């Protein structure tokens, strides 16, 4: 029966795999993937260092300010909404958990520590990835496939300096600021649900607990995380767009779409992985 089977990809039957090949095939595939992965990692590292070096070259200020406006200022509304409801849900759930132990007075502590140490930096980074990171990949990807990046090269304008460095600068500025904003609104959200809506906690107690339970280290650790996330998001999103034309799974507009999806998914995964790593280092 087997002799009657025709390989659709190789109808002539030339180059068929022998038994030895079949054993080595999985290892070949793993090896090929590993080499590709190492290559990509190397390329991404060089990409990141060149882009960071570009931050300190002339004529960057205006472009960086424009990106701060796009990544930072235009994300304020969505961050405010998400953080308010995160804080409110946190206040609501925590209140009913704490009240079982008669510890509802610790609501401020729980909300503040959860937000400042973890939820603030992580959710801010994920929200910026969704809003600005995806746009970053799509914009750079379209510039790539329409030869605009090649045009920069021919004009002796370094595309990394012109396109990527301002986005990294803007992310480094915007992420900590938006994280701080997220923390503040989130704490206020906890106050709204725990104090105003449920009325189970005294306002003074809530703010006293927030103030007394937060150390400066909690705040700085949160900022350190947000800076790490800023580098991850800006690098991953820019890299995916910049090399959208090198994708092997698709071409043109479809490649830009897939690059955008990859950028968002990879950024979110890396944010959570980095969160664990950074927390374990800082704790």
């Amino acid at each position: 029966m087997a002799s009657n089977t025709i390989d659709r990809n190789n109808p002539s039957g030339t180059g068929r795999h022998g038994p030895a090949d079949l054993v080595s095939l999985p290892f070949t595939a793993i090896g090929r993937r590993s080499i590709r992965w190492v290559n990509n990692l190397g390329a991404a590292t060089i990409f990141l260092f060149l882009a960071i070096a570009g931050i300190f070259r002339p004529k960057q200020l205006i472009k960086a300010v424009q990106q701060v406006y796009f990544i930072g200022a235009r994300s304020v509304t969505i961050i405010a909404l998400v953080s308010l409801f995160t804080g409110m849900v946190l206040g609501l759930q925590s209140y009913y958990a704490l009240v079982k132990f008669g510890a509802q007075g610790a609501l401020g502590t729980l909300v503040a520590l959860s937000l400042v140490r973890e939820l603030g930096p992580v959710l801010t980074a994920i929200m910026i990835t969704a809003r600005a990171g995806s746009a970053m990949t799509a914009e750079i990807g379209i510039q790539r496939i329409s030869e605009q990046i090649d045009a920069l090269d021919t004009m002796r304008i370094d595309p990394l300096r012109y396109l990527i460095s301002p986005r990294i600068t803007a992310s480094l500025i915007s992420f900590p600021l938006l994280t701080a904003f997220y923390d503040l609104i989130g704490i206020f959200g906890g106050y709204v649900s725990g104090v105003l809506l449920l009325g189970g906690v005294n306002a003074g107690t809530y703010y006293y607990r927030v103030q007394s339970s937060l150390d400066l280290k909690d705040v700085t650790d949160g900022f350190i995380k947000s800076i790490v996330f800023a580098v991850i998001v800006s690098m991953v999103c820019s890299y995916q767009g910049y090399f959208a034309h090198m994708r092997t799974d698709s071409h043109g507009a479809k490649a830009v779409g897939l690059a955008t999806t990859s950028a968002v998914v990879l950024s979110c995964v890396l944010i959570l992985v980095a969160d664990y790593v950074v927390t374990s280092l800082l704790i």
Partner: protein
Amino acid sequence: MEAPLIEFRNVTKRFGANTVLENVNLQIYEGQVTTIIGLSGTGKSVLLKHIIGLLKPDEGAILFRGVPLNEMKGAEKSSYFAKMSYMFQGNALFDSMTVYENIALPLLETTNLGKAEIDRRVRARIEQAELSDAVDKYPSEISGGMQKRVALARALVTDPRIVLFDEPTTGQDPVRKNVILSMVAEYHRRFGFTAIMVSHAIPDVYYISNRILALYDRRIVFQGTPEELEEFDHPFKDEVIKSLESLQDELTGFFSRRQFKIRYLAELAGRTARDKFVLIFFTLGQLDKLASSLGYETEQEAIRCFGAYIEKHFGATGGFSTRRGNDEFITILPFSDLDEAEGLLKSFVKDFQEQGARDIQECSLKDAPLGECVELILNAGIAQGQTGLQIDSIVNAARQKQTEIGRIRCGENQDFI
């Protein structure tokens, strides 16, 4: 012979298993317009991208003034690339920037010029490219032809010494196509840069090119002048030139140069050495002045209208015509002797005096700014030909005998014959 500015030595380029260029050897000389012709997808743009460094050869070397690019030091290489500019086939304009911002970008990012100086240079290019109405528009808000002109203006705003044009006339109508080629020729004359162009616009590119390079089957199979290409005997001519070359000059409706030659040979076939015919050589002078004052479009309209006028006058008597250069026209009167042809030319001049000049003026100035006009000078020369004589020698004889036969003036005309 002078040393080439850019030289390819055995350059090979592969993309995976696909070899696009194989042992390519070519020379590009300073100050010339060199056009690379070939069928679509044969690697012309790839070749161009090697010159500007967007691609690197897998084998072989690219030399600039005799020095291989891969042996140049960093500063030397930057100085080489700083001399260049590239106009992309798809324009590669920044779609989130206005026309003005697109043109100003290279100056803003690569020079330390002040804002006022940048503005002056950008405005000058905008005016030359006739883009004044589109300054604040985005590329998606203007026509394809205007986008080409924006790309051209951006490529020239840094005053480059070498300009690479990747199919600058693709998708343009005959007038626009010739407007762009005319702009390239005019800018080349004015600024003296070296132009390297990839184009399918045959025969139009012959009018402005000093040298033609033919890319065929992954190699350069011909390098020489457009005239030398006519004599080139190679499958490239049958497979490529014939398929690319339109039977007619799209602007004037005249025969293309090749078709003109075929018609010429057909007319002479079966004739005896005693049979005579006449060739008239026309030159429409001061077209450069017209282009710089009223724009390239008006210049091309003037050529088109004059072509139509010649066809109207001599076509009826069996004459057939072609363009020799941007402002040069040839008409053959196959059944006329010298006396008869002189009579026909006199009648042409008389008609030109009474009505023709006014018609051409109205026709070519229809889109020009109101009240503006440039005088054009019409020269003509007659030579008698006979079977056995080379067409080029008859053309040269007629060219040398040219005298001024009339002027297209603003609102009036004057003739001298």
